Every structure is written in structure tokens, then in C-alpha cells.
């Protein structure tokens, strides 16, 4: 049983060593693609984080008409708002709370004094604060809410933020797609080089089948070999990502251009990103060799 797990590892390792030159060229192909993937990965994840941060700042405030302040009416309105597509969380504040917020927004006590008399004749409205699930729909959602009964006034912040969000979203998707495409390219490259190492051992595979080795038995050492090559190829990109990102974070002070574009803190992220690269390298090697052995196995009956 232990032997069943151990044999592919041992044979796979031997394979890497015995076919050193080919292993190295496969690993180099992985290294090059993973470096580029790493750049896209860091970029995309950061853009993603910035977008999410910005989306949270985008909210719609809905003031409720003074003649619509009964509990039933407000519950009704809340339900209608929640039914609108794209509406995330809805938070309710009473006009007293609103008044208090308003007061609290002043620093000096004197101004607070000035407004204090209004507490009993509160001009504020009860209000809903709405987070949207999709920043690009902000305007449409606001319009729909405006048409509802009992709405006094709708306001939302950051039209420019909305545009930025949609732009970042496009960038993020493009980055993700590119990273994926590059990973596929890496699979293709490693599949090709591993195909060469397998072709060099075509006789070996034929012999294995001749003496009754099942496909899985033949395949497993090659797959392990592929995974090891993938891991080997990931080493340099991992180091570059780990140290590179920490350096970038230190140099920029954690944000680009303005405080709005904060970078993900280097502390766990640089490590995670490099582990992702390791995983990706192993996966790419695994899949690549799996496919090329399979292809060869099919070749020979």
C-alpha cells in the first residue's frame, strides 16, 4: 500500500534526474510563464481589492417623506427597495439618529449648541442607506427608488467613483482572462516538452503495457515527474513574487497615486501569492504530463 504511493514518487524523481536537460527546459518554460502570470496575479488581485473598497463607499441614501413615517409604511418601503435588483444591504436610521449624526459632524461645541433647539422639532427625515451589489447600476437603482411612494429624496455619492469602478472592473476581468490564458499556455508548453521526454521513452511505455502494467501504473510516475518539474519551474517566480511584492509595498508606502488606491498589505499576501504560483506550477505540470501520457497510451494498444 505504502509502496503504491511511494513508487510513483521515487520513479518520478528518478525521471526528473535522468532526463535532466529536458526537465530543465520544461521547467524554464514554466518559469517564464509563471513570472508573467505572477505580474497579472498581483495586478488583478490589487485592482480587485481597490474596486471592492470603492464600492463600499458608494451608497444611496433615501430620505422618507414626513407623511410616510408610520412603521407599516416604512416596512413596506423597505420591502419595495429590497425587491429592486442590485440592492445589497439596506440599513435604517430614525430621524433622531440622523439628527445626532448631523450634530456629531461638527467638531466645536458652539455650533452644536446652535442646532440643539431643533432636536424637538426635528427637520430631518427617517432614512435608508443602501449598498448596491454592482456599482455600475447605481444610477438606475437610484431612479427606481425615487419613483417609489413615500420617498422624499434620493441621493448617491460618487458618480466619478462609479465610472472608475466600471473601468477597474474591466481591467480586472482582462487581467484575470490573461492570467488564465497564460496558465493554459504554460500547460501547452509543458505538455509539449513532456511529450518529448515521453516520446524518448515510448519503448519503455510500450514494454510496460506489454508486461501488463495498467494505464494508471504507467501514468503515475510521469504525472509526478510533471508535477516536480512544475514545482521546480515555480521556484524563481515564487522568490521574485515574494521579495518583489514586499519591496514594492515598502517603496510605495502601500498605495499608488492616492490613498484611494491602497495595495494589499505585503505581510500575508506576498506569501500567499507565491504559494499560489507554486500550486499553479504543480497543477500545470500535472495536467500537462497527464495529457501527454494519455495521448501516448492511446497510441499503443
Amino acid at each position, binding site marked *: 500500500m505504502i*509502496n503504491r504511493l511511494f513508487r510513483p514518487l521515487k520513479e518520478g524523481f528518478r525521471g526528473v534526474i535522468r532526463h535532466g536537460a529536458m526537465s530543465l527546459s520544461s521547467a524554464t518554460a514554466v518559469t517564464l510563464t509563471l513570472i508573467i502570470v505572477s505580474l497579472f496575479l498581483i495586478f488583478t488581485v490589487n485592482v480587485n481589492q481597490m474596486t471592492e473598497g470603492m464600492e463600499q463607499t458608494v451608497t444611496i441614501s433615501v430620505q422618507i417623506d414626513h407623511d410616510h413615517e408610520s412603521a407599516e409604511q416604512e416596512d413596506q418601503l423597505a420591502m419595495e427597495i429590497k425587491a429592486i435588483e442590485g440592492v445589497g444591504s439596506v440599513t435604517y436610521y430614525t430621524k433622531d439618529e440622523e439628527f445626532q449624526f448631523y450634530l456629531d459632524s461638527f467638531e466645536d461645541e458652539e455650533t452644536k449648541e446652535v442646532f440643539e433647539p431643533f432636536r424637538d422639532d426635528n427637520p430631518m427625515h427617517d432614512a435608508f442607506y443602501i449598498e448596491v451589489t454592482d456599482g455600475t447600476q447605481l444610477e438606475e437603482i437610484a431612479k427606481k427608488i425615487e419613483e417609489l411612494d413615500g420617498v422624499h429624496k434620493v441621493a448617491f455619492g460618487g458618480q466619478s467613483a462609479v465610472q472608475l469602478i466600471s473601468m477597474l472592473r474591466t481591467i480586472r476581468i482582462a487581467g484575470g482572462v490573461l492570467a488564465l490564458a497564460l496558465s493554459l499556455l504554460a500547460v501547452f508548453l509543458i505538455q509539449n516538452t513532456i511529450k518529448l521526454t515521453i516520446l524518448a521513452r515510448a519503448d519503455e511505455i510500450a*514494454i510496460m*503495457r*506489454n508486461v501488463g*502494467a495498467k494505464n494508471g501504473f504507467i501514468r503515475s510516475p510521469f504525472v509526478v515527474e510533471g508535477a516536480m518539474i512544475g514545482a521546480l519551474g515555480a521556484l524563481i517566480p515564487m522568490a521574485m513574487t515574494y521579495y518583489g511584492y514586499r519591496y514594492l509595498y515598502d517603496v510605495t508606502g502601500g498605495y499608488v497615486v492616492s490613498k484611494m488606491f491602497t495595495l494589499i498589505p505585503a505581510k500575508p499576501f506576498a506569501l500567499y501569492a507565491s504559494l499560489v504560483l507554486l500550486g499553479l506550477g504543480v497543477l500545470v505540470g500535472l495536467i500537462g504530463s497527464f495529457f501527454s501520457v494519455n495521448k501516448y*497510451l492511446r497510441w499503443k*494498444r
Partner: protein
Amino acid sequence: MIECTHVYKKYRNGTNALYDINLNVAQGEFVYIIGPTGSGKSTLIKLLDGEEIPTKGTVGVIGIDVGKLRHSKVPIYRRNIGVVFQDYRLLPSKTVFENIAYALEVINMKKDLVRRRTREVMNLVGLDDKANSFPNQLSGGQQQRVAIGRAIANRPKLLIADEPTGNLDPAMSDEIMSLLEKINREYGTTVLMVTHDLTLVNKHRKRTIVLEHGHVVADLAEGGYVQHDQ
């Protein structure tokens, strides 16, 4: 043991290699297959070990319809038969011992059993002292004996050999012949041997099947074959 009925083989490129082959071989027999080059001998072997699929007819071995096996089941079927080729087909990076042991590891035999059985087989094929040699350090006859050892290691009921003496000189051929006869006699293993070597066929007389242009033209129970005019 072997039952071929109305077997035809036409290769994908259109070459007709076998026509209407009907063949019955009983357990424990020793049978030669002879015939001129291109007559379809290797094709017949490939049909028997599952490497090729018949175009028509059924190839039955130990009750299995070999032509109908799924790709993934072919290796498992092969555990019931041993195959020996003219070019030995040993794993060059493994020692003699490892080459023979490999056929047993493949079927998940326990390690100590593998070791014991491999020693046994090496003794049987007369290579006790070559355990740690690599194939390229052996003579052709010795390599072929390793291949035979590997083929019979898990005690198959059928041993098929495609020109096992094709690359060997007469003395070595005789050695291999005696080894195959010994396996046939002592284990009751059915042996099917393709050969070009008429001297051998006439010296060690056995049932002889003659192929020509893909047809069985003679099946001589008493063996011996005198080449007729072409």
C-alpha cells in the same frame, strides 16, 4: 486455449494481412508458426496479445474475446499471457533482476514474493550470476533469456514468442529452444512460437502451422517442414 474463428485482418492502410484464419490450440501444446516474410505471422501474434483488433472474426484466448477488450483492459488481459519478441524489449535502465521483477510489481505482488519469484525465474533461465547486470552488458542469447524469464514470471498459461531466435546464432538458438521446451514441459505452459528457422523446426519437431499470403496453407501435427517450390 486459443480459438480463432474466421479471423481477417486488414490494416488501416489497406494491406490485407490475414484471411479467414481458423485455429485451435489446446492447453499444453507447443506450436510453431512459420511462413515467408510478410505472410502475416507477426500480425497473428499481435491479434493474440491484443495489440491489434481483427477486422472480422473472433480471437479467443483462455475464453476471452481479445478483439473486444477495452483499451484499459488490455494490460490486465496480458497478465495471463507472456510475450517474447525478437528484439527482447528489456527496460535498458533496469538491471536483469529489476526487469524480471517489474512484471511482478506491475501486478501488485508483495515485495518479498517478488524477490523470491524473481530469483526462482533467474535460476530457471540460467542467469543467477547476472542479477545486477544491465541489458546492454549481456549477449543476445542472455537478453532473450531475461525476456523469457520476464514473460513467464507470473506463470502465464500461454507464452507467445515472435522469432525469439531471430537475432541469435544456431548455438544460442538451441539454448533458447531448450528453455522454451523446458517451460512447456515442466509448467504445462502452452507455447506458440513464430520462427523463420527451418533447421530448428526440423530438429525439434512439433505441430507446425504454415502461413502464406495471410492464409493457413498447412497445419502439420507431426511437424517437420520441407520448403516446397515457390
